[in-house]
């Protein structure tokens, strides 16, 4: 294996020092001269016609600077995928939390007081909250879409009916994956500033700065060049922080007042108007032969998009077909429906639909393995795609460490012994997953990543990228890649915050793509910078660039180690000889991913595909129904870990969220109202809910990833709910097909079994 000096080494995140000292400025910390504070008036009704808005009383409150409604906006319907968004409700409100108006005031208290003084007359309309009910004839229409169906996904391959007839075992089950909340610690936030020049600067917590800018330009009726997006530090996202009307409300208030406006969701608002996970009903039928070969899969999914489509249809589509590139299914019938309801719009949450489907599929496979009296681990290995295979949908598996993940997880967890010496109410469960690193089906316009590497006179390297670090350690990984390419120490590298005035157009941080795309982009830029440095150094040494090498912070003449110059010195010479120009390397990486065919879905959506196997061990308290996860093993094919420490950190966090989803997290919604919009009633895992997690890094070295790396963000969570559910089955013999598996459900099931 090639030895690298920075890549592949565990190093602390490059911004950890600032964060540890509390001096890193997060979006909700930003302050500007003259800044005002905004608050949104949200609909108290799930579905109602707006008859009249009277802001006059609120306007006269001391300290109120502006009140805006839809009438202050261009009323251009927009949206990241559909055009069913308005900045503020036009004519109708469609969920409790829908944006009706916004206030800017000298402080948050005044803004909130003003909200109470805005009089809105509503005429309530019939509403519908469950996607299956919303599809029935006569259900109230939320937008003008027949049966409230946002979109349909259909896919047939082979002859699934005949395949099932020839199977030795077929399992048909209904699963339900519930609506859960990303629960990042910093609520959604932004500062918007319409400057006197007519330029709007938005300081946003967003995973997709460049794409957000395009969407917002449309919504505000502004040319793209008038909008600048800057991404400061922000406190987690996990899929939720893409486009949000919060940002646009701030922009409209700033336009009206000419002042910078800071807006931060309260935690309650974040629950009621954020972007929680798309809930899904999944009817899944899977058939296998006696020897464990999986043959056919039939699935019908109904996903609830809430009151407007964010990315829900793409999420349902992903749930429909991504797992077909995990195992070798030959016969498929797939239907996915995305349906409007009068509830909070749902969207991306770590896993993007694949997490929902992985719960269903991996639970079904556990049952199939049981019926066949086969080791569930063996079943996965037998069917899992291997390096060099092309999946039924055309996905080219450049590297697959799936089998190694299964074998290593089995070994590290004591899987075989624990299955054999079955103890009362204790059990082990296994689940696998695949994922993508990048998703061509999502980024339809182009696929790629880009970077800029600027080297100043003093040899300081500043890296620009267009992705988004929400805390996962992306900046650090980019810095490591650039340091490796330039042959300098990590502390020479700084990574600039994303600023769309300067940074490349990055598609952003989603689809577990940051490391692969951003990483390859900054790598290409570093190579370009290095080429320039070596050209100038070659002049100094009176040789040609190919006779030079950069390592250890120096430029050497090959085979003559005494002839060398420090990197800093060469950077200075470059600048002095080139009229003061810093070295600016630019580069991009545009992989030949293939957009899926609209009908057959045949394509190749990502340049690299990560895999994983996780094993949970649980103990069920049969008196209380409480599930204690006592051991957890997570083996992940990450291609190559650029930074093993941050990669492990992603695994720990993903598994923890997965365990939370499996056992405790649930947005309780009654008549469209979220009943538990706080951390007292919506409980996320605390330090006692999670056992130490054994993480295992499997590194097959992918041909397309930077230094062989693939992504880790989403696969870290995907298999966890199924691993836990399968362990619970092993422990107490009860199969749960609905999330979360709460103590109440366990006690009820145990009681029923006793009867």
């Amino acid at each position, binding site marked *: 294996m090639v030895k690298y000096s920075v890549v592949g080494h*565990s190093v*602390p*995140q490059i*911004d*950890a*020092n*600032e*964060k*540890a*000292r*509390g*001096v*890193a*400025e*997060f979006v*909700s*910390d930003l302050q500007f001269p003259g800044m005002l504070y905004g608050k949104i008036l949200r609909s108290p009704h799930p579905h109602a016609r707006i008859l009249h808005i009277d802001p006059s009383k609120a306007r006269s409150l001391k300290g109120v600077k502006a009140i805006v409604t839809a009438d202050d906006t261009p009323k251009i319907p927009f949206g990241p995928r559909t055009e069913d968004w308005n900045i503020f409700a036009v004519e109708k409100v469609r969920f409790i939390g829908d944006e009706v108006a916004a206030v800017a005031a000298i402080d948050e208290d005044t803004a909130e007081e003003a909200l109470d003084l805005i009089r809105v007359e509503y005429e309530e309309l019939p509403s519908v909250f469950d996607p299956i009910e919303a599809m029935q004839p006569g259900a109230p229409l939320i937008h003008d879409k027949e049966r409230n169906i946002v979109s349909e996904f259909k896919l047939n391959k082979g002859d699934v009916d005949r395949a099932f007839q020839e199977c030795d075992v077929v399992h048909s089950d209904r699963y339900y994956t519930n609506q859960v909340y*990303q*629960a*990042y*610690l*910093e*609520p959604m936030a932004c500062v918007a500033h319409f400057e006197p020049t007519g330029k709007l600067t938005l300081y946003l917590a967003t995973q997709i700065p460049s794409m957000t800018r395009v969407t917002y330009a449309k919504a505000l009726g502004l040319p793209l060049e008038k909008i600048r997006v800057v991404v400061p*530090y*922000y*406190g*987690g996202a*996990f899929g939720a922080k893409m486009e949000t009307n919060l940002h646009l409300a701030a922009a409209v208030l700033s336009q009206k007042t000419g002042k910078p406006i800071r807006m931060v969701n*309260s*935690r309650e608002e974040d629950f009621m108007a954020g972007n929680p996970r798309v809930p899904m009903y999944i009817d899944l039928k899977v058939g296998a032969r006696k020897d464990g070969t999986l043959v056919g899969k039939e699935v019908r999914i109904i996903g609830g998009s809430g009151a407007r489509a964010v990315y829900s249809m793409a999420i349902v589509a992903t749930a429909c077909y991504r797992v077909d590139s995990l195992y070798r299914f030959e016969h498929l019938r797939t239907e996915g429906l995305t349906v409007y309801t009068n509830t909070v719009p749902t969207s991306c949450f770590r896993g993007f639909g694949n997490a929902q489907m992985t719960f269903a599929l991996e639970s079904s496979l556990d049952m199939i393995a049981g019926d066949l009296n086969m080791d569930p681990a063996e079943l996965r290995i037998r069917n899992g795609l291997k390096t060099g295979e092309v999946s039924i949908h055309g996905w080219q598996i450049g590297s697959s460490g799936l089998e190694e993940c299964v074998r290593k997880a089995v070994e590290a967890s004591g899987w075989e012994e624990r299955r054999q010496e079955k103890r009362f109410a204790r059990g082990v469960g296994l689940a696998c997953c695949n994922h993508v690193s990048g998703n061509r089906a999502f980024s339809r316009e182009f696929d790629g990543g880009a970077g800029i590497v600027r080297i100043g006179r003093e040899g300081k390297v500043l890296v620009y990228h267009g992705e988004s670090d*929400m*805390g*996962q*350690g992306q900046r650090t990984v980019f810095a490591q890649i650039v340091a490796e390419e330039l042959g300098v120490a990590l502390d020479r590298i700084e990574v600039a915050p994303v600023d769309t005035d300067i940074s490349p157009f990055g598609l952003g941080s989603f689809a577990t793509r940051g490391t692969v795309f951003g990483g390859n982009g900054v790598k290409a830029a570093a190579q370009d910078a290095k080429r320039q440095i070596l050209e100038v150094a070659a002049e100094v040494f009176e040789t040609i660039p190919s006779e030079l090498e950069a390592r250890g912070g120096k430029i050497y003449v090959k085979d003559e180690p005494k002839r060398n110059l420090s990197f800093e010195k060469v950077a200075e010479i470059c600048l002095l000889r080139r009229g003061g120009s810093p070295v600016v390397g630019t580069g991009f990486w545009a992989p030949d991913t293939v957009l899926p065919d609209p009908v057959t879905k045949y394509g190749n959506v990502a340049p690299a595909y990560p895999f994983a196997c996780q094993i949970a061990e649980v103990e069920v308290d049969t008196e209380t129904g409480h599930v204690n996860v006592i051991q957890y093993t997570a083996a992940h094919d990450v291609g190559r870990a650029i930074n093993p*420490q*941050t990669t*492990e*950190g992603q695994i*720990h*966090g*993903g*598994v*923890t*969220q997965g365990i939370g989803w499996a056992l405790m997290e649930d947005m309780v919604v009654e008549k469209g109202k979220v009943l538990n919009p*706080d*951390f*007292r009633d919506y409980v*996320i*895992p*605390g*330090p*006692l809910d*999670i056992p*130490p*997690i054994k993480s295992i890094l499997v590194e097959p070295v992918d041909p397309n990833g930077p230094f062989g790396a693939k992504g880790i963000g989403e696969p870290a969570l995907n298999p966890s709910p199924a691993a836990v559910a399968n362990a619970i089955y092993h422990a107490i013999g009860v199969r749960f097909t609905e999330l979360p598996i709460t103590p109440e459900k366990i006690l009820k099931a145990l009681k029923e079994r006793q009867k």
Partner: protein
Amino acid sequence: MKYPLQLNVNGEVFELEIPANRTLLDVLRNELGLKGTKEGCGAGECGACTVLLDDEPVNSCLVLALQADGRRITTIEGLSGAGKLHPLQEAFIHHGAIQCGFCTPGMILSAKALLDRNPYLEEREIRENLVGNLCRCTGYQKIVEAISSLVKRKD
């Protein structure tokens, strides 16, 4: 109506006049500009706003500023004097216990109070004592490892 308030924050004394309904969190962030103390929920449930009040960890969003009158407050900014990091800050950095960093200041202050009270902690005790501080990124493992690296051994 405003009331006089004297706060001793990180060893510095501040004389303020504030309305009775303002929280300690609000005063620290918006009057004193100490933005290292974060607001994650405003309801005492997440622990991001943890500060030390006479060496005891409190959710500063639940403490009225006037209740802290004349008392000693330590915020994250007070831990790293003269450019030197507190050992807990060093440990959090080197163990990879920081991801997004929003829970970090509160987490470090809770850990400090814990270690000051009892330097001989088992892992289980560390976990038990951090239940008031939520973290959504790390799964707590590296946080627990960071704190464990500083406990004293009883032998």
